[in-house]
């Protein structure tokens, strides 16, 4: 079985008490690549997860799933702030570091003899 194109893994502390079940170690992967790899300068280590509120992330995906899945960038123009706030992970919440990831629909135009077809896929770039 192949790995799904996009995967979110969240790991919570084993013995998290009440009120300690929000922050998780979150890892994002797409097409077999880790998108959340970072260098923790303080701990002097490289890790593949970031530590933040899994609840906030879940709400953000729930609030924006349609736009993430179906909304593309028109004409390749640089997106405005409103668009970025619905498509960039750094907009989830303030006061926490989020990976600088943008999710958008990718349109691929293919000429097939006399007709054009659109293929779509979710790109995590």
């Amino acid at each position, binding site marked *: 079985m192949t790995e799904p194109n996009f995967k979110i893994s969240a790991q919570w502390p084993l013995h998290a008490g009440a009120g*300690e079940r*929000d*922050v998780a170690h979150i890892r994002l992967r797409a097409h077999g690549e880790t998108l959340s790899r970072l260098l923790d300068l303080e701990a002097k280590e490289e890790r593949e997860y*970031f*530590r*933040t*509120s899994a*609840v*906030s992330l879940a*709400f953000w995906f729930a*609030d924006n799933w349609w736009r993430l899945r179906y909304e593309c960038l028109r004409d390749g123009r640089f997106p*405005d*702030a*409103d668009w*970025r*706030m619905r498509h*960039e992970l*750094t*907009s989830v*919440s*303030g*006061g*926490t*570091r989020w990976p*600088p990831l943008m999710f958008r629909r990718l349109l691929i135009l293919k000429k097939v003899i006399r007709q054009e077809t659109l293929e779509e896929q979710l790109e995590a770039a």
Partner: protein
Amino acid sequence: MPRRKPPSRSAAERSSESDRRDLRSPPPSNQERRLLAAKASLGPYSKHKKNPTAYKLKAYEGLDEDRTFCDADADFTPADLVRAPDLLQRGISAGLFGHKNKKGDPSLLWTVDDNGWIYEACITNPGYGDYHAYPVLRNEAIARKVLARYREYVENANEPALEPSLKNAEDRYS
């Protein structure tokens, strides 16, 4: 046996973590700004201090998140705390209110420092206007929206002292 329509599920109010970050639109009235300015205050919070003891705060004991820091990220030192009330008033005067309220207070506010750093203030004590703040990082989209409104405010305020903050912020978040 006839089926009965089940009772409607009560919609639970979402937690604060789900608050979408955005500016209030249209901007708050002058009266709203005056009312908030009269009661709002900004207090330091150890969660967003790399070295909380330097601010005479206890060490942060909350969950181990990848937090942003006023001191380590924005070089906002304990000596800068005396400027905090003026910075908060600046953000309120500029109408940089978040679009959601908690007990009558905006749950989020923003302000722009002279050195160009934007700070996001989050309500600590709803209803009393107590806030704590943390820096907005360069890659956060909300910075563009805050700057657009702040630019309009500065251009109409006729206060030359505000101009460096606008110029420096536009450089920092470009």
